[in-house]
């Protein structure tokens, strides 16, 4: 039974490392800041959290596993907030969107005075 759990854990860590790599690839290749934030936040929620989940599956309920679960909790708590705050700050700082962007509702709402 524990051998199968080891295989599942190593598979989860491999998936996490590959997702981290694709998040970095999105950070290099995508055209503007907002797309890059969208691609880079995936590298947190699926990449590093999957590495930590693999550590939990391999080790079980000992010190390493509990600390890995705690690290997943803090990552899930902080990372979407930081992505949203960064994109809002970039919009307020006046970073232009890509020239093929279809619509920008936040810009419309700010110009019409609906939100600050």
């Amino acid at each position, binding site marked *: 039974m524990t051998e199968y759990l080891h295989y599942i854990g190593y598979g989860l860590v491999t998936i996490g490392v590959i997702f*981290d790599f694709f998040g970095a690839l999105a950070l290099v290749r995508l055209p503007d*800041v907002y797309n890059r934030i969208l691609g880079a936040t995936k590298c947190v929620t699926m990449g590093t959290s999957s590495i930590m989940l693999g550590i939990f599956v391999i080790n079980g309920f000992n010190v*390493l596993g509990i*600390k890995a679960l705690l*690290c997943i909790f803090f990552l899930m708590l*902080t990372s979407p907030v930081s992505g949203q705050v960064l994109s809002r700050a970039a919009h307020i700082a006046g970073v232009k969107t890509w020239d093929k962007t279809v619509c920008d509702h936040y810009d419309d709402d700010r110009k019409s005075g609906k939100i600050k």
Partner: protein
Amino acid sequence: MKILRWIIGFIVFVSIAVWLGISDISMFYKWFYILLLACFMVLFRILRGRTPADRAVGVDILGIMVIGFSGILALTTQKDIYLDIAIAWALQAFIATLALAKYLEGRSFDD
């Protein structure tokens, strides 16, 4: 010129993938090499990024890569002190990102 850049990137990535596939080093080293490659790509974005927001996103994601490194180190050496480093680094990177975002908005820090 664009096709030439695509071909060079394709050759580099395929050669790295083939080398990782056929070499008989340990699995931990393969994870380390892939994460190092990802870190260099994020460093490229930090160095070149056209706007300050690009650099802020790059610094945030580099912190996440460091958390992944310390997780793999904890799995390799079976010591839990690396996961302590990971938890502390996650909280510290969050506060640093909030400070960078506040600086980008043009507000002062005691606002």
